[in-house]
């Protein structure tokens, strides 16, 4: 059973539930404490030992269902009773029920044929043992190599071979040749048994395909999404990307969180404590601590939400707001022909909804960088200082208008860092109405940013410099 549990944990991992070795040991202890018989109890107990976030719980339930998803105990119990009443009829397509126990074989020859050690694991009626046998056969048949729907038959065959189904076949034909009543009864029983086993194998293979194929498919999809140009995404992919963004954000967050916090209280201020103690005759009643003063870095994000750049803005904002516990205070702005602050909107609403609202409210109109920059300068120009990092996301296409370079320059001189993320590929910078080459002179860095992979790298670097 332990092997089975390990396989289950493997499946959980493939479904993105993070299970550490320590937790694996926990799960073993847990299972040992509650036993394997009560499925509901086992599920509840393992869930508390293995699925450690609210998001993981449904995934866990799903995997548990797939993996331990044998028929309900009550149901199978009832079926077994039925089967005991009337000999199992094996002709129809309905999932065959587990045959009743072996008919008593008093005939020496029949008993001798049935008493075959190779046959024993196949005839053992306990579900657990069957599970173990299936697992073993799966390992022998390299079932994890199965990728496609069409391979089901092949792997099913291999599984059956590995389980020693041929021995069963041989025994059946040997029994038939005996041509005795007891022999026929045994044949009937073995045939029912064979059908039951075959259907168990089929179910097992199907479930395994479901578990593995999902995982493989998802991995490939995520890889593709990460390097795809964001503007090329279809509407229905947005949800997947949002999830991926959140996943990437979590990864980056855990990397940077550690460095963010440092001593806040500081050490005992000996000088001050002694000085103040003079008033009490040198008895230091009150202690003074050195305060560590740290400037809170500020992040200003300006996103162009006109036309094709909008998709990128969407993901930049989503990314940054998914990082809310490592990124310092963000003030966000969106612009097309004038600027609007969205900080409050994002503070109050979940990112996706906030983005939709911002889009509907301010997304119309063609880009006017000068007007937007001037607006920004008016709103928070005074506050930009040596803590401020400004990120502008836009293509720098200003419809041949005044780019407002002098405003950018004044920001550039005041702020600690001015970054420009440009979704256009480098080759098209400066062509047509693109002013990006001119803006480049007033930025610390201009980076091409047109896929999630690039966005991830940029934000990683950004966090390294900001803290």
């Amino acid at each position, binding site marked *: 059973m332990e092997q089975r549990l390990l396989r289950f944990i493997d499946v959980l991992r493939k479904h993105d539930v*993070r299970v*550490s070795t*320590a*937790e694996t040991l*926990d799960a073993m*202890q*847990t299972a040992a*404490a*509650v*036993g*394997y*018989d*009560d499925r*509901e*109890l086992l599920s*509840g*107990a393992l*869930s*508390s*030992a293995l*699925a*450690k*976030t*609210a998001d993981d*719980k449904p995934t866990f339930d799903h995997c548990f269902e797939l993996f331990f998803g044998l028929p309900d105990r009550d149901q199978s119990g009832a079926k077994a009773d039925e089967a005991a009443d009337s000999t199992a009829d094996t002709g129809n397509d309905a999932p065959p029920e587990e045959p009743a126990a072996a008919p008593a074989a008093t005939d020496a020859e029949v008993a001798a044929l049935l008493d075959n050690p190779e046959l024993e694991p196949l005839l053992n009626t306990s579900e657990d043992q069957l599970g173990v046998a299936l697992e073993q056969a799966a390992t022998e048949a390299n079932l994890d190599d199965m990728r496609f729907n069409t391979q089901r038959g092949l792997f099913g065959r291999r599984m059956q071979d590995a389980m020693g189904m041929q021995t069963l076949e041989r025994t059946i034909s040997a029994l038939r040749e005996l041509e005795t009543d007891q022999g026929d009864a045994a044949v009937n029983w073995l045939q029912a048994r064979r059908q039951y086993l075959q259907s168990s194998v089929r179910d097992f293979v199907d479930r395994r395909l479901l578990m593995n194929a999902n995982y493989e498919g998802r991995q490939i999809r995520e890889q593709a999404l990460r390097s795809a140009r964001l503007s090329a995404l279809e509407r229905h992919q947005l949800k997947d990307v949002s999830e991926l963004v959140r996943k990437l954000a*979590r990864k980056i*967050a*855990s990397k940077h*969180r*550690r460095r*963010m*916090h440092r001593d*806040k*209280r500081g050490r005992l201020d000996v000088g001050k404590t002694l000085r103040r103690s003079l008033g009490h005759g040198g*008895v*230091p*009643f009150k*202690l003074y601590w050195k305060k560590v003063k740290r400037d809170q870095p500020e992040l200003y994000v300006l996103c162009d939400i006109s036309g094709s750049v909008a998709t990128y803005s969407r993901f930049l904002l989503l990314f940054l707001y998914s990082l809310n*516990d490592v990124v310092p205070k963000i003030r966000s702005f969106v612009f097309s022909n004038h600027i609007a602050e969205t900080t409050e909107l994002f503070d109050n609403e979940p990112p996706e909804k906030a983005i939709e609202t911002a889009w509907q409210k301010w997304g119309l109109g063609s880009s006017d960088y000068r007007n937007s920059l001037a607006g920004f300068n008016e709103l928070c120009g005074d506050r930009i200082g040596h803590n401020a990092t400004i990120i502008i996301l836009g293509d720098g296409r200003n419809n041949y208008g005044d780019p407002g370079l002098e405003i950018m320059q004044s920001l550039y001189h005041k702020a600690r860092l001015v970054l420009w993320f440009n979704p256009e590929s480098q080759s098209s910078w400066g062509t047509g109405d693109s002013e990006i080459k001119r803006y480049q002179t007033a930025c610390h860095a201009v980076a091409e940013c047109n896929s999630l992979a690039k966005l991830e790298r940029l934000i990683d670097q950004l966090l390294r410099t900001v803290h």
Partner: protein
Amino acid sequence: MPQSTNAATAIDALVGKLATQNYIANRQIATTVWLAQQLERPILVEGPPGVGKTELANAVAAMLEQPLVRLQCYEGLDESKAIYDWKYSKQLLYTQVLKEQLGDIMKGATGLKASIERLQEFGDIFYSDIFLEERPLLKALREPAGAVLLIDEVDKSDYEFESLLLETLADFQVSIPEIGTIRAAVKPLIFLTSNNTRDLSDALKRRCLHLYIPFPDQKLESLIVRTRVPEVTAALRDQLVRFVQQLRQLDLKKTPAVSETIDWARALLLMHAEVLTDELVESTLNLLLKFEEDIENTQPELRAMIKQAQE
């Protein structure tokens, strides 16, 4: 087979015992608590606010007849407030006293070397138990008959505080550099609660069993109200629970929690209500919904919901 049966009986018994403490637990909750006792693991309890996370720790403490030691987390909480601190003022006073006593101690010692040897013999009580100020974690570990330790809203604490907790969570001990390691006499049962305002570290999660308490379903919530406010008539109880369950389906800024259902039931009781009526709901809705916008947004659907609740 007997193993599962044993576990199942123990868990059912636990549900019953918690019920005598007025805490209605579902099987998942009882299973996790039982496992925590068996495996000696802390429990990390998550769930929306007001579903009884803190209450669970209270009930378990009362059930085990052990003291509940509570540590409320907040930003900036550090070891001197959570684990231990030195009684600085007393230590400083002690040095003053020592200064006066020094003459007696040093009597007869001549030369620097002899004095230092004499000082060595003199016990070092500056950093000792006498001046140790116990904070919740240490207190829970030192409780002679065991205790239930509740670390409330651990997500509000800083990231590095989580690391401080790890030693206690994994090995039931704390290390004080000046004294050494203090182990728990009796391992306390530890509950951590989190409202998920931020992701907790994997290291912390790894050491805990995880329990997610969702909003209860109608049956369970009805049972909770019955236990908490037994005076409410059955008819009213069913109606008000059904109404709250419907409210939770709406998009609200703050979804009403179980604690709010109970408050509402109490309020309705005070108003001698027998059944839900439109006026009654409208005049008491602010007990359930804490934001003006939420109240406004539900207005259009209010009548229909009350009607459905009355059926």
